[in-house]
């Protein structure tokens, strides 16, 4: 699944690294660069000019079609729209992409099995393959029928209880603390012979909202709980945070945005008084312990796609990787039966269930899924909607443009003008969306701004239009109306628009 977390198990691994690098254990972003270190002065100016938000809505902007710069796919738009590799990778990289894709769709099986390189599932798991949740590399959805809860799960966490624990969070060594029995997430599936952790329950309450022009929209407010608990009750202060799998496109480009460009939009104390703060998330690299800018996950809790992928392998599927050598996945000490199950480690193949190059290939794949080209950028309604989007203040957080770093690890991602429509910062989104769960620097009301590129193809790719972190919104209008907190003013501006302007704004989003 797309939502990830740091592992409690990781702590022993990390602490070693931390001892070696005590200097970075301080609570600020002072180590992160405040200016583009990769550009000459001439390029700095060019980048500033080209990323300035437009004020001209009479025509499309230069380069606007190519949301991911040269990494944009122009393939015929169909259900595969999120599954193409960036056209600017080499033939050799294309092979890595395809191997990564095959591993991404691969069904892992429980141990022992006849195909020893493919076993190691669980023992507790949410899914048997990456693609189980990232359907068509797109967006997951809440369970609509009886048997398809797969593309969504519950994250479990409790807040710090002691000064020592508070210090661990302050030091970025911990994001939060797991349930003593159930661990960091609620796995509703288990291998044969083991009880699953239970079942996620959702109930919805319809809440009517009246817009400025009198139109009434019904929002469904979810309540989450768990049933059929397999291992006794959850701890009292543990919260449930539901997450659907987010789309996989453009992640390598996001990784290639320079820290300085993201920090430039941060205003944690709202010094400019616009009611929008924006906080950069600081997290530790899982392997080095280095303090980095978090940019992936609903709470910006991971700095790299590799960290995100290894976390998903082990937490969601129960497959250990070189970075997360926990072959029993999210089993805790209190789950003795789980820890007693066989693992899929084959010593001759390596000490973990998915030895390299599996993790590197899946990471490469995840970094190179192309963003689809925009459609209809010159359409008058789209342009009108774009104007509405800007004038309502949506761009205060949904930052239209960045130019990625010249020294990006992958050339295909370097120096591209990209249009993700996100600032990748944490914002208070109000009580309505709150999950009450702290994740590192993000408190229970804060979420990372989600990128909007590709959002208009959700229906085409996934045949649904469920949005937000838990898929509660049934369409874009509902998704916008759920915005609160720092986004309250923008939400109100949308609600106050006449029907025509609202429709135009939605048409603009559909063209992304």
């Amino acid at each position, binding site marked *: 699944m797309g939502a990830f977390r740091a592992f409690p198990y990781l702590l022993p691994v990390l602490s070693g690294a931390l001892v070696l690098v005590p200097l970075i254990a301080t609570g600020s972003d002072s180590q992160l660069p405040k200016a583009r270190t990769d550009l000459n002065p001439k390029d700095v100016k060019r980048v500033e000019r080209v990323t300035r938000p437009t004020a001209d809505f009479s025509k499309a902007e230069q380069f606007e079609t190519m949301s991911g710069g040269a990494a944009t796919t122009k393939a015929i738009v169909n259900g595969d729209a999120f599954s193409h590799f960036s056209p*600017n990778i080499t033939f050799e990289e294309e092979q890595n992409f395809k191997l990564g894709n095959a591993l991404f769709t691969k069904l892992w099986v429980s141990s022992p099995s006849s195909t020893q390189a493919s076993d190691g599932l669980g023992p507790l798991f949410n899914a048997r393959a990456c693609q189980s949740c990232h359907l068509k590399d797109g967006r997951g959805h809440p369970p609509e029928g*009886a048997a*398809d809860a797969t593309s969504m799960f519950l994250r479990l966490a409790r807040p710090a209880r002691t000064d020592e624990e508070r210090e661990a969070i302050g030091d970025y060594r911990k994001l939060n603390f797991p349930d003593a029995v159930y661990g960091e997430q609620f796995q509703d599936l288990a291998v044969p012979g083991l009880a699953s952790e239970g079942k996620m329950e959702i109930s919805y309450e319809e809440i009517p909202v009246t817009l400025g022009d009198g139109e009434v929209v019904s929002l469904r407010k979810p309540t989450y709980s768990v049933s059929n608990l397999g291992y006794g009750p959850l701890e009292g202060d543990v919260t449930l945070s539901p997450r659907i799998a987010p789309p996989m496109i453009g992640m390598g480009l996001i990784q290639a945005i320079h820290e300085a460009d993201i920090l430039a939009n941060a205003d944690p104390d709202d010094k400019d008084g616009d009611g929008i703060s924006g906080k950069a998330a600081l997290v530790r690299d899982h392997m080095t312990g280095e303090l980095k800018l978090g940019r992936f996950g609903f709470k910006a809790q991971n700095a790299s796609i590799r960290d995100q992928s290894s976390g998903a392998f082990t937490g969601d599927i129960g497959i250990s990787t070189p970075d997360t050598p926990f072959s029993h996945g999210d089993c805790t000490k209190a789950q003795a039966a789980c820890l007693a199950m066989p693992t899929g480690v084959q010593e001759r193949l390596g000490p973990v269930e998915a030895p390299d190059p599996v993790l590197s290939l899946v990471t490469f794949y995840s970094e190179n899924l192309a963003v689809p080209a925009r459609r209809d950028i010159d359409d008058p309604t789209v342009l009108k909607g774009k104007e509405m989007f800007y004038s309502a203040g949506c761009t205060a957080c949904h930052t239209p443009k960045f130019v990625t770093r010249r020294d990006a690890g992958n050339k295909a991602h370097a120096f591209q003008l990209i249009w993700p429509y996100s600032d990748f910062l944490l914002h208070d989104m109000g009580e309505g969306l709150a999950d009450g769960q702290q994740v590192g620097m993000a408190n229970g009301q804060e979420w990372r701004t989600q990128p909007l590129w590709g959002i208009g193809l959700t229906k085409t790719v996934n045949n649904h239009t469920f949005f937000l972190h838990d898929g509660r919104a049934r369409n874009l209008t509902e998704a916008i109306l759920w915005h609160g907190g720092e986004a309250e003013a923008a939400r109100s501006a949308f609600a106050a628009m006449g029907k025509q302007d609202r429709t135009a704004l939605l048409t603009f989003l559909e063209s992304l």
Partner: protein
Amino acid sequence: MTRKTLLGAAMALFAASTMFSSMPARAETTPAAVLKHYAELAQAKYEDSLTTAQALDKAIDALIAKPSDATLKAAKAAWIAARVPYQQSEVYRFGNPIVDEWEGKVNAWPLDEGLIDYVDASYGTESDENALYTANVIANPKLKINGEEIDVTEITPETLRSLHEAGEIEANVATGYHAIEFLLWGQDLNGTEAGAGKRPYTDYDKANCTGGNCDRRAAYLKAASTLLVADLGDMVKAWAPDGEATKNVEADGNAGLTAILTGMGSLSYGELAGERMKLGLLLHDPEEEHDCFSDNTYASHLNDAIGIKSAYTGEYTRVDGTKMKGPSLSDLVAAKDKALDKEIKGKLDATLTAMNVMKDRAQKVEAYDQMIGENNAKGNAVVQKAIDGLIDQTKSIERVIASLDLGKIELEGSDSLDNPDAVFK
């Protein structure tokens, strides 16, 4: 610069030098002529795919009308024959968006066969990924997809179309060559041991039916075969002289030549050497075999390689034995750099040699899925050699690009709104 931009720019330069400089030999070969012939070969390959699929369709009619070992064997032979021209056409993928968009309907792989028909108990009964993992359309007139009931009482081409990639799961392959393959051969339950699928003809015998629902199985097979014929017919039309695919590829000399090279490189390296061959070796997993029910994988790979060479040389031998030849990429490259033309031809041949060794081994020693098994150094090495050949030939494909000094070329006007696809540099 991007690969394709590089390629495009290179071709612009290349085209200019070929057309306007006074090249002594083969000066008559222009990119336009090469592309015209490339489209003609495409049409011929899809026509051959169509006629062999029509023969398969007839053999399936015979099997259904009179199920016997002989009619089943004839249908299997027709399927294997039909794969030859189709696999040779695969090099038209990747570079041609129309082919890419269409391809999944006829050649999607891998597939969860439990969607279609009965499977062995060892297959397992559930997959969280795929609620239709063992849906068994042939046995169940009503299915549930995401809680929604689907009526498959009547098995028609339209029903199959609606089941394809059901629930957004790519492994729900309801149509195409591999669905038909499964219905003729059945599951290969031999792992990396010898043997292909062993479906008995009585699976189609309504009087002495094995496997249950022989009438519905027959209806499924016929519907899948009907769709295959229709889909191939669409591609023949697309590659007619005034067809959409032909027009696309001929519209722009640079883009057209780019399409040829992209198809060759992408099929060689990522698709064939990578996903279809290297992954199986990496995992030693017999499921990672392209034509896994029929054990025809070696032929499938070999014909891909023949197709790649054909895209370069402009030569194709039709199923009736007719030899086609015309202006080719090889002519263009030879006019510019004879040594490079020789090099790439040598590598394309080396790959074919390695593929033929693999074919011999498959026919005389062990099947492809045995070759990729663990602790089979000899078999592994034979497959690896073919992979190495494919990777090596891709390097020469890239050299075709590099020889034209592409590194320094930037597209003019890339910051002009006249070109809406331009990217910031």
